[in-house]
């Protein structure tokens, strides 16, 4: 008898749990709710199929937690034209994998128009912080007869896209967070065969055009995509769409694709909150090249054209280099003698990655967990920003055990699959591509030069003076808009309130006369550090003549350069020019911003009586008449608004 096996997208980068059922039940037996949550979150680092996902979600649901220390709560509404109930557990589990507590709400399928328009709808009551549109191409396809001319097809599609944009507009009125639009799955069958591509009214052609136009409109309107169309091309449409499930319950996304779907939603939401990974840490032997350089020598390693495995290792190097070009930091962590390892980068003719591509290079015989900590510290990024790629299962297990916050892809046995595995995991999901991203690698290289300078300087003062720093500053500009949005939303350490802003909110603040916005770019004799700090001040709601620092962020790249002092000098002068008499500021502690817990007192702010405070914010006050402009080694260029 012939069997039809269900197709299923594989989350192959995640390791398989030895005893998921047992671990889940053990997790639920913990006495404390927060321990149960931590244990469940730990289980999400394993490869979960449909059943495990439902199971884990049910266990999570039993905790009934809306918030927990170290987790970010987020309300997500799903507006759908098909059944999505089976996707919601996977969205929550995907969130848990990134320490997001996603509260998902979905209306009845096909109800989204009314839900958007009716101010008394459950959707409005829910006050979502993110909205996902999960729509089908069926409506558009059924509205276009096969015999329709190309021009008429375009017109109908344009009408559909216009309606979609009106939904986005409505969604914006409800939600000031991210709006996500799912691309259209092409679930159609061929009518003419390959000739379908020449027939404007053919269903597959319509779906393709819809997606083209959708992407253009989304890019213009600042809407983020959930590209299930691309995923279904990768996994095959049978993995993403199951005709039986459609007939049974109007499921447009197959249940077996739910775990990946949920992970993709969570990736994008996490990216929006600055939780994507930042650094790819690569092992060397049998990862970047074949063989062991210490044993086989420079000539003995397998790398480059003319050898299948050598080409596959080179493909991984090429992929890493492309990631670097889009702003991912590269590092090396290898058990090797440093000189031997570095020699490959300098002297091997087939090496695509050069030593200068690597921002942190640790080749030694120390424990790799310690080396990863050192890499994170050296780059001044969180350990949870690292992805560690190593062919050795023992090293992988060791890192997962001792540093569970590091992402460790379960590399397949065959080097041919390495790139796919790392790419499929979506570690570096982005919500923007800015000029800062393009120059990041350069900036890390320059930072290494600065560190060399620091090493040779007799004192911190001498180092800072020697840098010949200058700050270019002014109000937010349209030109720098995308970078400002990205910086505010990605910065976790030097971030006073961790308040996130959408593109529209920043555009609004930029144009709002009462708001005092400041952006700072730091230059020095080594190079341009880029736009690395922003500040948003607005009139305090309850006190006349007082400006509140609603948010202040600074990139970790420029910590310890006195920029916080010069930025405050600038802010104070700008506030004085506006006739303000005082500044107030909140510091809201998170698991990541402890580095600035003493920021405001160090700038001369006084603690406001805490008795009336709520929500964990520490409130600080600065009388502008008392503020003395502080001397720094940073010269000023530009004028405050």
């Amino acid at each position, binding site marked *: *008898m012939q*069997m*039809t*096996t*269900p197709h*299923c997208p594989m989350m192959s980068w995640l390791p398989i749990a030895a005893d998921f*059922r047992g671990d889940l*039940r053990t997790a639920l037996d913990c006495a404390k709710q927060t321990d149960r949550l931590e244990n469940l979150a730990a289980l999400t680092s394993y490869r979960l*199929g*449909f*059943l*495990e996902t*439902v*199971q884990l979600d*049910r*266990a999570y649901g*039993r905790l009934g937690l809306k918030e927990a220390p170290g987790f970010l709560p987020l309300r997500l509404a799903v507006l759908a034209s098909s059944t999505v*109930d*089976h996707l919601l557990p996977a969205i929550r589990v995907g969130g848990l994998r990134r320490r997001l507590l996603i509260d998902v709400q979905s209306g009845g399928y096909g109800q989204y128009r009314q839900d958007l328009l009716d101010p008394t709808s459950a959707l409005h009551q829910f006050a979502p912080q993110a909205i996902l549109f999960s729509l089908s191409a069926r409506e558009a396809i059924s509205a276009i007869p096969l015999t329709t001319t190309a021009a008429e097809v375009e017109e109908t599609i344009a009408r559909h896209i216009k309606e979609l944009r009106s939904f986005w507009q409505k969604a914006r009125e409800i939600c000031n967070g991210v709006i996500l639009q799912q691309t259209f799955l092409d679930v159609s069958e061929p009518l003419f065969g390959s000739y379908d591509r020449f027939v404007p009214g053919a269903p597959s052609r319509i779906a393709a055009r819809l997606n083209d136009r959708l992407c253009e409109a989304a890019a213009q309107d600042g809407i983020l995509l959930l590209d299930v169309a691309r995923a279904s091309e990768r996994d095959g449409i049978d993995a993403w769409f199951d005709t*039986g*499930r459609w*007939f*049974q*319950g109007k499921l447009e996304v197959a*249940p*077996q694709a739910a775990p990946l779907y949920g992970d993709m939603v969570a990736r994008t939401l996490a990216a929006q909150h600055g939780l994507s990974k930042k650094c790819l840490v690569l092992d060397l032997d049998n990862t970047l090249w074949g063989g062991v350089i210490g044993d086989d020598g420079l000539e003995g390693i397998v790398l480059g054209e003319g050898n299948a495995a050598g080409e596959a290792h080179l493909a991984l190097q090429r992929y890493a280099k492309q990631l670097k070009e889009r702003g991912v930091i590269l590092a090396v962590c290898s058990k090797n003698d440093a000189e031997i390892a570095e020699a490959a980068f300098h002297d091997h003719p087939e090496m695509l990655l050069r030593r200068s591509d690597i921002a942190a290079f640790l080749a030694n015989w120390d424990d790799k967990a310690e080396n990863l900590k050192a890499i994170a510290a050296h780059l001044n990024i969180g350990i949870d920003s690292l992805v560690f790629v190593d062919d050795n299962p023992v090293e992988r297990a060791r890192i997962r055990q001792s540093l569970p916050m590091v992402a460790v892809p379960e590399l397949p046995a065959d080097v041919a699959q390495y790139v796919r595995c790392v790419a499929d995991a979506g570690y570096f999901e982005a919500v923007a591509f800015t000029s800062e991203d393009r120059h990041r690698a350069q900036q890390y290289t320059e930072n290494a030069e600065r560190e060399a300078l620091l090493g040779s300087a007799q004192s911190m003062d001498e180092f800072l003076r020697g840098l010949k720093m200058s700050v270019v500053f002014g109000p937010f500009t349209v030109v720098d808009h995308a970078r400002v949005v990205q910086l505010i939303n990605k910065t976790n350490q030097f971030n006073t309130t961790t308040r996130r802003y959408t593109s529209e909110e920043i555009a609004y603040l930029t144009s709002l006369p009462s708001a005092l916005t400041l952006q700072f770019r730091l230059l020095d004799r080594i190079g341009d550090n880029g736009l690395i700090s922003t500040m948003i001040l607005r009139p305090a709601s309850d006190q006349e003549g007082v400006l509140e620092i609603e948010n202040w962020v600074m990139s970790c790249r420029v910590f310890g350069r006195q920029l916080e002092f010069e930025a405050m000098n600038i802010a104070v002068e700008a506030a004085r020019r506006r006739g303000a008499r005082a500044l107030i500021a909140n510091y809201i502690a998170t698991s990541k911003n402890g580095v600035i817990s003493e920021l405001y007192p160090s700038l001369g702010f006084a603690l406001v009586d805490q008795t009336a405070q709520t929500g964990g914010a520490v409130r600080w006050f600065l009388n502008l008449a008392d503020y003395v402009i502080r001397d720094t080694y940073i010269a000023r260029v530009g004028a405050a608004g």
Partner: protein
Amino acid sequence: MTTQEILIVFTRILRDLLLDDSIALTMETRREDIPNWDSFNYINFIVAVEMEFGVKFKIADVESFANVGAIVAAAMTMVR
């Protein structure tokens, strides 16, 4: 596989799905006999069984299975 072996796997799947280790399926068990085994979780169960055994049930059968025994019987015809 024997019907008994399949029934054991079915029981495990439904226990996991509903996170209820007290569930004990027999060939005569009907959906309404099990708390929370609603239509949503019925489809979830079918999906999980299909993935576990690498089979696909006919949609007409899925709508008309009278009890667990009927599902076991249908699975038997497809599982080696």
